[in-house]
């Protein structure tokens, strides 16, 4: 798989975790692709933390409205039934557990569900934005990421970069497999048969609990 194929593969698998009627917040980058892979019979509500539910696709020249943007400041559209609100209600929704699923990328994620995604020491610090609230407040936190960063493991025993949230991640989905954070450790639930179990273990710096994982079946 090339880079884009890998991203689409991960996004497609994440899409299967979403259920009809879910309120979902997708981070920028890879997570945004998830919306492209929803079955037609599943309708989800996308939230954008700057103040809307019912996030639609990027506008055409005809539907462009400078007053409608997403949390990245990019122009978007509002779907039928969607609505706008202010930042306090937006984060009441987020922190109050009303978001069913949030999907984010990571720099590091560990087997206790801790996440590091906002500071690389020595680099410019962009700020956490709404990520800390999202990871803390959402019912289910899915990390959608390539399994490694240029061969270096991103899934660790313990994150060593500054945390975005402690013990909040529920699931990690990569091109190699699907992992779930449970009280007794990080379980490999599914694996991509393009890789051997040994390859997955070697690409992971966390202790994986492996107990009859299923095969991740997705067309690329």
């Amino acid at each position, binding site marked *: 798989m090339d880079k884009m194929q890998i991203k689409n593969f991960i996004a497609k698998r994440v899409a299967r975790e979403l259920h009809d009627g879910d309120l979902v917040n997708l981070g920028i980058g890879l997570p945004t692709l998830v919306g492209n892979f929803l079955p037609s019979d599943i309708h989800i509500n996308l939230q954008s933390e700057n103040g809307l539910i019912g996030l639609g696709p990027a506008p055409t020249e005809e539907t462009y409205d400078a007053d409608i943007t997403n949390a990245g400041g990019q122009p978007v559209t509002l779907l039928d039934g969607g609505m706008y609100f*202010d930042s306090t209600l937006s984060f009441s929704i987020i922190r109050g557990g009303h978001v069913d699923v949030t999907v984010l990328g990571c720099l590091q994620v560990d087997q206790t569900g801790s996440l590091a995604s906002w500071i690389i020491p020595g680099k410019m610090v962009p700020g956490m934005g709404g990520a800390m609230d999202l990871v803390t407040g959402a019912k289910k936190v899915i990390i959608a990421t390539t399994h490694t960063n240029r061969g270096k493991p991103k899934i660790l025993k313990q994150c060593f970069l500054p945390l975005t949230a402690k013990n909040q991640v529920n699931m990690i989905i990569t091109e190699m497999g699907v992992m779930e954070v449970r009280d007794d450790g990080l379980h490999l639930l599914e694996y991509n048969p393009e890789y051997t179990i040994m390859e997955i273990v070697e690409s992971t710096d966390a202790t994986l609990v492996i107990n009859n994982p299923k095969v991740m079946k997705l067309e690329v």
Partner: protein
Amino acid sequence: MKEIIKISDLKNHLFDGMSIMVGGFMAIGTPELLIDEIVRLNVKDITIICNDAGLADLGVGKLIANGQVKKLIASHIGLNPEAGRLMSEGLMECVLVPQGTLAEQIRAGGAGLGGFLTPTGLGTIVEKGKKIIAVNKKDFILELPLRADLALLYGTTVDKYGNTNFTKTTRNFNPVMATATDLVIVQARKMVDRIDPDNVMTPHIFVDYIVKEEE
């Protein structure tokens, strides 16, 4: 009837070292005319409270680029490299706050609350130096209220009484900031006779002055 002032009257309400809350999210819903006037007047040593650092040439980014900002309290500065540079070189103090905490701190400042308990930031550097309080065996960070001398809002519709609305995603931090400062000035995109009483977002009692965009 709320007092409509000229943009040139803004100077009567500004002073060096003041704190200003500025509505907007990545400069969407930010009163650019009011910002421009503050750049022109070159007020110094400002503390800015805003969701983000704007862009290099938009929103509070213009104040930052002009070296007027001593301290920035925001959740995100990633789209303004100049803010990052000033921060890392120690030329601008920058307090990064989780976005939901920032909104809630401003709300607490306007609502007379002494603080609130949030789970956001637990186990991260955000909790550093803050009181941790357990409620029913669950830990929370005690976050304190934020207030400022002045709020600059961008009202997309303002009625003659000063009732103010913010359309679509221009709303963001505008209504909550209206409650948390000693003075509130609104840049009005459009003046109308009357906003439906059921749909007023910021009641006129919060608004002190209006600057009309057309003039």
